[in-house]
């Protein structure tokens, strides 16, 4: 790769991590692609930039707004790359079926997690809000995801997470899919008690966990 192309990728990474304006990032990505940069290398540069954003958020240097903005930027880049990636047939990082469990209509946290997972290359099947466990089970049968991710904000809806895990077991689907949970009232202890594989306290952690679950090779 020429020094110019390498410099372009470094620039993309830096612009993502420093949350440069969407328009300027779009321009540099388009320019890099027309100069012959491999779209997969752009994805890697973007991912490194996003990882940096996540680390800054965890260190308290960045705030929720910056996390959301990084997701918006990544989504813009992904849209530009989509036609190029389809040609190169790049495999997604994994497939996640996600929803806010039955009894809860809140979706802000879930949507931020979706933005971050999508940015990290995961294919997302969003079941929406107030999702009954039967709908999750049907989606697991149909979509064959690597991960089922459940979110809730209301304490009253927490037990629905256990209901879904039990239903996945009843349907003999539990062994083929990892389950991660998150949301305001959820704790690591609760996740363990109900038999989830992992708990994420925020969107950055959710991405890390999803990657770890996939890399463990336990997924379908």
């Amino acid at each position, binding site marked *: 790769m020429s020094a110019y192309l390498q410099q372009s990728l470094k620039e993309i990474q830096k612009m993502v991590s420093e949350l440069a304006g*969407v328009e300027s990032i779009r321009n540099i990505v388009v320019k890099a692609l027309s100069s012959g940069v491999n779209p997969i290398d752009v994805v890697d540069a973007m991912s490194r930039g996003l990882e940096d954003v996540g680390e800054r958020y965890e260190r308290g240097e960045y*705030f*929720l*707004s910056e996390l*959301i903005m990084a997701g918006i930027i990544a989504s813009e880049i992904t849209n530009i790359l989509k036609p190029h990636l389809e040609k190169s047939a790049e495999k997604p990082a994994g497939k996640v079926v996600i929803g806010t469990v039955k*009894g809860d*209509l809140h*979706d802000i946290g879930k949507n931020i997690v979706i933005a971050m997972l999508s940015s990290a290359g995961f294919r997302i099947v969003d079941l929406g809000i107030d999702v009954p466990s039967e709908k999750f089970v049907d989606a697991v049968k149909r979509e064959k995801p690597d991960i089922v991710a459940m979110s809730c904000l209301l*304490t009253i809806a927490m037990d629905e997470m256990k209901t879904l895990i039990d239903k996945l077991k009843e349907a003999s689907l539990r062994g083929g899919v990892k389950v991660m949970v998150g949301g305001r009232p959820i704790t690591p202890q609760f996740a363990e008690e109900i038999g989830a594989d992992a708990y994420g306290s925020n969107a950055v952690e959710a991405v890390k966990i999803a990657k770890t679950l996939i890399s463990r090779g336990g997924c379908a």
Partner: protein
Amino acid sequence: MNRRKRALKALHIEEPDRVPITEMDIDVPHLEALTGKTFTGEVSLQTSVSADRRMEAIKVEIKTECYRKLKFDVITCDLSAPDGWKSVRNPDGTITDEWGRVLIHDSRCKTWFPYRSIFQTPEDFESFSFPDPHAAGRTFGVEYMKKIVGDEMAVAAFIRDPFAHAWEMFTPITFVKWMYAEPRIVRKAIEKLTDFNVEIIKQLADLGVDFIISGGDYSEKKGPMVPVKYFREVVFPGLKKQVEAAHKKGIKFIKHTDGNVHPLVDDLANIVDGLHSLDPSAGVDIGEVKAKYGDKLVLMGNVAVDSLARKTKKEVVDETKECIRRASPGGGHFLTSSNSWYTDAKLENCLAMVKTGRKHGKYPISIFNELY
């Protein structure tokens, strides 16, 4: 001691006879359970969703009966929608409020809450007719509550914080997108919402409310939702204007926020009179805030709503005692949960919190290290 006087003493950071107790709000299913009454009207914790005055009066009556029954020292009241206003009914079952917030109904909690927005482009906001703070009927609920409550309890009126209001009006993702790409729009929204609140505060003070509670969050579990610098440059100047409006009329101003507020407390201590929630689930230590700002900030909190929902009665009693031990000495503390009595809170835990407050909140506070 009269309950209102008890609250006013605490509001002035003095020790009354015992720590005043209240809740920022109580979900309708609990109001119904505690009063034996049924409420069929529409409510939202964030906004006015109906101008049906008959229903609004019934809600005020049920809430007053409930707060009386619990012997609360403060009762809270919402702003009303203007006379004749009707929400927009959308085909998917959602409704749109006066502010362009699209709300969805939660039948279990019997409440509407913000879900989407009518603002898709900056032009949508530019062409939006902003609600009039002086529209007739805006203070219907507050006036009615003052009339039936009199001086029995202190009356706190809710306003919506301009930052949180804009965050909900635009939805978080659009708010952030415009915060970077169209900063003028977000600033303009916050400024206009501030101007609206200033006019409302003047009216509320003239009606005799005892203090203002500004609802809406600044923080999430990890920290502030936007950079502290943004709060200082864009949000806090408007907050100061609202506090000044309240002070000019001789009433106090309390800021509510969930989440980890620690990074903002130093600034807030120099702007507002008090903080509500002090969310323990987000790691906020009420004792730490008390030690640092107990002489200038009224503290309202902070029995965790998660404890009310999931823990045993004994654990809630212990948590309440610990809260009193750390926050009540010296006055300036109102015992409340860390938000409100949601539908998922166990009523027996809520009542245990109140009972414990009444038993152990007597001044001088004598719970010292008995828990340890």
